[in-house]
């Protein structure tokens, strides 16, 4: 055991000062290393992904893909909707203003319409008008407004190239700024999707 050395007050004060400074430095360095190790250990939070195929072109079926897509985008998900077959009408600049819903063979209509009545000319226009008025009363945006919302929130709206060929839809018929895609490319996107829906 070392003999106790008497220090002069000045030396003792200098030692205290040096120890305090050095101690502070060591603590800070240690905390920094620990924080970096913690950050490195935490996995990068992955963005969730939603892939939707929209294959129907009636007014009632235009809403589900657009509502799900915009809700996903609002939560920060990475969303793409692939419009194929009749679903392409939803992003067809001319046709998407005239989407209709037929009561014929549609027992799910809130107002039941016997098929014999539903087949009468004008019944589809009437059912469409009714649905539009329900949407308006519920303050639901129109299909065009929903598309705008999707665009603004970064949802990828993709036109099926095959459908365009089969149904003679030209690129200028599609809403401006949208991409044309194919099945393989869309499946590639959907492979990493958390949620994939066929509508």
């Amino acid at each position: 055991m070392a003999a106790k050395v008497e220090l002069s007050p000045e030396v003792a004060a200098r030692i205290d000062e040096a120890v305090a400074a050095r101690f502070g430095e060591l603590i800070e360095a240690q905390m920094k290393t620990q924080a970096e190790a913690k950050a490195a250990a935490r996995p990068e939070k992955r963005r969730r992904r939603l892939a939707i195929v929209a294959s129907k072109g009636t007014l009632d079926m235009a809403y589900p893909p657009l509502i799900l897509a915009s809700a996903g985008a609002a939560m920060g998900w990475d969303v793409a909707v692939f419009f194929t077959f009749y679903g392409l009408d939803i992003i067809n600049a001319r046709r998407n203003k005239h989407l209709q819903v037929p009561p014929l063979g549609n027992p799910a209509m809130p107002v039941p319409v016997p098929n014999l009545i539903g087949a009468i000319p004008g019944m589809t226009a009437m059912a469409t008008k009714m649905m539009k008025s329900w949407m308006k009363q519920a303050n639901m945006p129109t299909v065009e407004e929903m598309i705008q919302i999707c665009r603004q929130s970064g949802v990828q709206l993709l036109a099926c190239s095959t459908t365009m060929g089969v149904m003679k839809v030209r690129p200028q018929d599609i809403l401006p700024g949208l991409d044309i895609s194919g099945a393989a490319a869309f499946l590639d996107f959907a492979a990493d999707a958390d949620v994939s829906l066929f509508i």
Partner: protein
Amino acid sequence: MPISPDHVLDCRNTFCPMPVIRLREAIDKIGAGQVIKIVATDPASLHDMPAFARNTGHELLDSATTDGIFEYYFRKSEG
């Protein structure tokens, strides 16, 4: 303990997905740490709002229901 919000968003008489979409728009515009209160009549909001919190990382501080009116208090998170 009553929370005093910095902002209030009225989403009454709108249905899913509108409350969630409008909340996202509004919360993007406010500063981190600020509190926004959203008022809704859509029963789906009871499930949509916690899901929004879980998926975005913003904090759902509190919620209350009075006569079919739902109120939610969110605090905007950093990052």
